[in-house]
């Protein structure tokens, strides 16, 4: 009963092997206001979103993928 996520190293795996790491965003912002928005106002898009994922029960590397938040389609 699992969605599959393709790890760049290990290939497609059940989603239970992964941990979600949030939206892919730059780790710095130009000013305080932009930084606050970056941290506390998620994009919350209805559609494709770039995200960081961690292969917790596999190779334990981080990678970025694009997931459609409406359909869970990845890529």
């Amino acid at each position, binding site marked *: *009963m*699992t*969605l*599959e996520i393709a790890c760049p190293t290990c290939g497609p795996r059940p989603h239970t092997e992964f*941990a979600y*790491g949030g939206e892919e965003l730059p*780790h*710095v*912002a130009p000013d*305080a206001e932009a*930084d*606050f928005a*970056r*941290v*506390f106002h998620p994009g919350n898009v209805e559609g494709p979103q770039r995200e*960081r994922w*961690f292969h*917790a029960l596999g190779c*334990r*590397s*981080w990678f970025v993928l694009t997931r459609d938040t409406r*359909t*869970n*389609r990845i890529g």
Partner: protein
Amino acid sequence: MTPGRLRFEGRDVPVLEGDTVASALFRAGVRTFSRSLKGHRRRGLYCGTGECPNCAVTVDGVPGVRSCITPATGDLRIERPRGWPSADHDLLHVADLAHPLMPVGFYLKTFIRPRFAWRTAERMIRRATGSGPLPMDAPATRTVSRHVRCDTIVVGAGVAGLTAALEPAVDGERVLLCDGFAIGSRVAPGPTLDAIRTLEARVRANPAIEIMEGYAALGLFDGPSVPLAGAGELVQVRAERVVVATGATEAHQLFPGNDLPGVWLGRAASAMAALHGVPPGRRVVVVASTAEGVEHLRALVAAGTPVVAALVPSAFVDEVPRETEAIVDGELVEARGHGRLRSVVVRERGERRRIRCDALVLSMGLAPRDELARMAVGEPVRLVGDAALDAGEPRLGGGYLCLCEDVALHDVEQAWTEGFRSAEILKRYTTATMGPCRGAMCGRALACFARDHADAADQRSGARTTARPPLRPVALETLAAPVHEVVEKRTGLHEVHLAAGANLGWSSGWKRALSYGDLAGEYRAVRERVGMMDVGTLGRFLIAGRDAARLAGSVFAGRIEDLAPGRSRYVLALDEGGYVVDDGLLCAVEDGSYLLTSTSGGAERMDARLREWADRLQLHVHLLDRTSELGAILVAGPRARDLLERLTGDPIEAAALPYPGHRELTLAGVPCRAIRSGFVGELAFELHHPRSRGPELWDALLREGKALEISPFGLDALEVLRLEKGHLYLGQDTLPDDTPAKLGLNWAVDMSKPWFVGKAALERLAELPPTRRLAGLEFEGAPAEGAELRGAPLTVGGAVVGRVTSAANSASLERAIGLGWIRRGEDGFPNELGAGSVVARVVSTPFYDPLGARVRG
């Protein structure tokens, strides 16, 4: 003839070969198989395919078993659970007569005041409408869970399913064909069964097709994946494509009297007559609107059933057997009877006519079983065969719409007038389609009703209600099969603790020694002499590579670059909001690498965080989780160094191993890294060693420590020891939005660093005074067990302004102490608060040895 019997409500019922529980009971004269949910109306055999609720009985203590599809094998014990005093004579049938007093949704509008009214009413309603008590004393059965992969899964092994299995989408693909029953077992002899047998032979001969009979599909999930339940197993099938060949049921018909015992669907009646040799009645009327219906009519007559009349369309009039009166293009108006069918009213050429009968057999169309396909959003699913049919619109003539939930058509009309105007909301208000059949019998009728009544513009209100798993009743035990128990982690000293009779407990995913039998004694040993504790649960990480210092400096809030080899430092990890998420001890190793220790519960998170920032900042580092590989023993107390000196020739006096610092040494022949620790407030050394040498090291310490009056100690003693120093436990003493300022940990932050995770947030927050702080507390008038104060709200003038996060009785300080968070008031932070009847005073921490002289020895 297979001799056999069923135990049915105190009497024996004979069983013949091929019998289902329903056929054996029917042959023995049982006509009322159950009582309906709300009105306790009599219900008899109806669909014959396991969809409707009418034949559900309790078999060997398990309620809700569809007797029409359950083989009568073995000495089964059958009961009809609903009905008081019995199903045959049910006094609760009065509920049906009181129907006008209990309109649809009445329980949502009544029993509101007085308050106790609902409690009482609910208990009564629950007793009257339950499906039967669960066998709570039955031993748990073991269900095996396994995973299977294939290219195509075909659900349903009828003609369409067998055909689909033989036509692979891709050459050489692996096909899995499954069905809830044995192939062909539910079909009466005839052309359909012959076709099935021919196809079956070809399928069995094909090595690329795996057959799973007796495995029912429970639903369709992402993947696509289809879980199957059968034979004590839960099989999770992952496929590339899904073919749904689940066929169709005969359509449930709505007309007055449609739920009377004696009203049958065609398949059930013809199976009873042709397969089981029992005619459904002595005077039978058949309504056959389709070719299948005519097949059933002919099967009934061939099996000797007295069919007095058959309503058929003119196209089929020649198929009607001579003995039966054919009523051409007639219309079924209603079924009449009290507790059982006695006559039907038909309209023939405009004239109403009443026909006396005791069985009415309906075969007026099909309702495709398309639930699986309707569960799929964007998955590669194909419907074939009867499941793909475009079913006609059901005629809403009256009677009961939802048999499971006892919802009549006029109940639905009532709900519509009250303003519930879509299939989904009608479902929720009337509970129609919410019963065991999940809408298989009634879903189309409900949607059709909404569509008919809604404006032409509003088509969404007539959409079918959402299809949900499970498709078949399934025990929670089965669903729980693949759920693994919580992963239990153990240190290399686990057996040692067991042998010592330690009191073990769970802590952050580890099995740990809580105490060795004498909490007060363990505490005293550490404060006065020397104690030893298994701390092998701590996270340990190697951080190496040319960017190791940069990674540590980025992830942790404090200064790292001046940490010299042989020295260690307490480090805080913040998230991007500036909140404290982890802490640990960073040791700079002689070769340029670092050894990081973290909390037991936060180890995996810390590892993930280090890897994340190495990736985001593109740093050249090598990270290794050494938690499993290394054991660790904490030796703490004024005599700690004395003990270690007995076991090593390496220098460990204050100058050689200062606080805070670490060094390698060999103890009792075991290579260790000794790290000075301040957590318990005494002279202490964490001895990190190879896991396999742990028991050896533990024994040596215990042996040499005897002369020094050593005692092992556990988590319970640790709790008090660390509390006396005001040391916090992340997660217990902290809240998710605690910044270093709120925790009094600004000393661990270096704002002069160009960047670290969370720095921008702290800069923003620096301008605002903290609205909350974690404070040390002393209690006056505390209960004998100080720990009871943990979690108590802290009040000022009756208003809650904080909470006690940790509390214990301190033997050394002879009072109860604790930690708690307090909100700032208008005049600053309060110094005296109430904790129930106890007075809490804010004091500075550490409580014990404030200058830390004992730790630095």
